[in-house]
């Protein structure tokens, strides 16, 4: 049984950052702006988050979960601000949306490393001490199965991630603003005629994506390391894949993220899973699983993919 709990915990470890970032991407694309800058935003958000933690810890100003939450906010805000660049270029200047996205992806790691090196005498990695793992949540951890699944040696970020999922769903599908935002991604001319400010909605979408992606950067790095080197191992792009895989819909995105997390977990812990270990295939075979499985699944599910119609088109009133 404990192996199950362990695998589940690991799956969350992979899935939660993917989930959060992909949800971010969802807001941007549902408002009609493609955001391939997720990777870059993750990096910059993560960087400032870690930097903040590092500062607070070394000067012993604060620590623990409070620090975590504050740091997440820092990452989110940085990400949001950073994404404004993308918003401005692709919404106001009607530029091709891959251009500014690419620029951001290139800029973020360079800028992060540059700052780090400049401040830390040529040293690029920013250290942090991981004091954020919750060994067990007081009462909740006693709940039979769920207790072990969720509330033993877990991260606050897991719950934040699930919370974000629910909020995102409600916001996008059940609120006035959500409805308007979606309309801008499908038929901005219609939104415009209905008296909705397409620009406002798209800015909202992009900034939300920046905020979540920024957070995602920090969520990604905290559990897996003790320092940050402005590198998120392509998770931004994987999140993009998850977003498309999830057909731009919150719950399906969650599904995709967990599917990916699960396969990834298997790929790296198969030796700890009796029957898989027995197979004794070469490691690479397992490492390939997530990617090949995704491809195969897509091959069967893509016939009716529901990309937002106006995605990637700059909005101009004149066009019919």
């Amino acid at each position, binding site marked *: 049984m404990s192996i199950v709990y362990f695998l589940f915990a690991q799956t969350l470890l992979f899935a939660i950052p993917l989930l959060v970032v992909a949800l971010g991407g969802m807001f941007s694309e549902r408002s009609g702006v493609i955001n*391939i800058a997720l990777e870059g935003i993750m990096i910059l958000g993560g960087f400032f988050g870690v930097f903040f933690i590092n500062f607070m810890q070394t000067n012993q100003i604060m620590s623990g979960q409070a620090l975590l939450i504050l740091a997440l906010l820092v990452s989110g805000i940085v990400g949001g601000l950073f994404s404004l660049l993308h918003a401005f270029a692709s919404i106001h200047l009607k530029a091709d949306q891959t251009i500014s996205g690419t620029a951001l992806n290139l800029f973020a790691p360079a800028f992060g490393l540059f700052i780090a090196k400049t401040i830390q005498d040529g040293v690029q990695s920013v250290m942090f001490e991981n004091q954020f793992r919750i060994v067990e949540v007081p009462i909740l951890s006693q709940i039979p199965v769920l207790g072990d699944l969720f509330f033993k040696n877990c991260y606050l970020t897991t719950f934040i991630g699930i919370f974000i999922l629910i909020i995102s769903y409600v916001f996008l599908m059940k609120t006035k603003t959500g409805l308007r935002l979606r309309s801008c991604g499908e038929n901005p001319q219609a939104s415009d005629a209905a008296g909705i400010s397409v620009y406002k909605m798209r800015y909202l979408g992009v900034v939300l994506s920046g905020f979540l992606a920024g957070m995602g950067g920090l969520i990604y790095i905290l559990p897996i390391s003790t320092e940050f080197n402005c590198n998120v191992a*392509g998770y931004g792009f994987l999140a993009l894949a998850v977003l498309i895989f999830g057909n731009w819909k919150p719950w399906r995105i969650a599904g995709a993220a967990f599917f990916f997390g699960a396969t990834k977990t298997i790929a790296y812990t198969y030796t700890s899973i009796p029957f898989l270990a027995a197979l004794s295939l070469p490691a690479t075979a397992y490492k390939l699983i997530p990617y090949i499985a995704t491809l195969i699944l897509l091959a069967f599910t893509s016939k009716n993919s529901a990309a937002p119609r106006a995605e990637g088109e700059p909005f101009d009133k004149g066009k019919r």
Partner: protein
Amino acid sequence: MKNKILLLLKKEGSKSFVSSLIAIALGLLFGFVIILIANPGDALEGLKLLLTGGFYRGAKSLGQVFYLAVPIMMTGLSVAFAFKCGEFNIGTPGQYIMGAFTAVFVALKCDFIPNSILWIVCIIAAGLAGALWAIIPGVLKAYRNVNVVISCIMCNYIGMLLVIEGIKATIYNPTGAESYSVPAEKAIPAFGLDKIFPDSNINFGIVIAILLCILAYIIMNKTTFGYELKACGYNPDAAKYAGMNEKKCIILSMAIAGFFSGVGGAIAYLSGTGKTLPISEVLPAEGFNGIPVALLGFNNPIGCIFAALFIGYINVGGNYMQSLNIAIEVIDIIVASIIYFSSFTLFIKMIFNKYKNKKQKSIEGGHES
């Protein structure tokens, strides 16, 4: 005089050119400001190095520029080509690494081929490998409507992992835990270019790269084939109505794009500079760097030549900048901001047009009175 300017501004091409010059200027300015903040003392010196870098050590540095430019020129071309056909080929890293591996493998294992033509065989084989790796997303798109971006991302990782296995199984060098490098005598010959650019790593690859760009340009803009590809990119339904085979178009355009990436990998690793394929699980930067090149070159094959050379140029310059306590990352910062500012092109053009119209009015007005 004024009218001359107007005529110049009228030309779309020159408009794009001018606005990209503006973008470059802005980008450099931004980079300069960053340096200024980080290290005021050496900022000016740094900028000078950055700008003169390509000539800093004369022909040698220039040769270095070419050397650095070739791989990204090819991946850039790859992205641009697919882009014109309506697909965003983000799979260049996978195609590039596939090509690189194939080239090195053939070079080291196929001893029966005489060195004189070996490099040609390698390049072609690499191109085909890259093409193969791009066909997968192409087919998935054409027959299963799988989004190309996502399948490309998956193929990148799959390719990388397979290549690592391939190296371990065939051309593994235990001392370095990496592939063997392609020795100089098997590398692409320089055909005298090394005389023009003494002790730089330049070789005939640069010529091949430029020729391929020109070829791509011709295919795109002068041939019926290109006409079909673009039509499919713009409007598949209309293409179908016109009797074109849109599936074929998608697959072929991806294949060709992949071919270019593969060749890029080959040229890079056949340069005889001791470049070796690592077995570490990271995607090759040259792949993704194709995207900036393509964008800087307005997704125009010819544009890619200049874009790649430019990036190579300031990379060389930036290298020398390290001597001034300026972190090498500043190069990427500058390139990034240039690309970002190049997204202002539309905007800048608009200003031109406004200006143009005003002028014309005033001129016409002048005539009447």
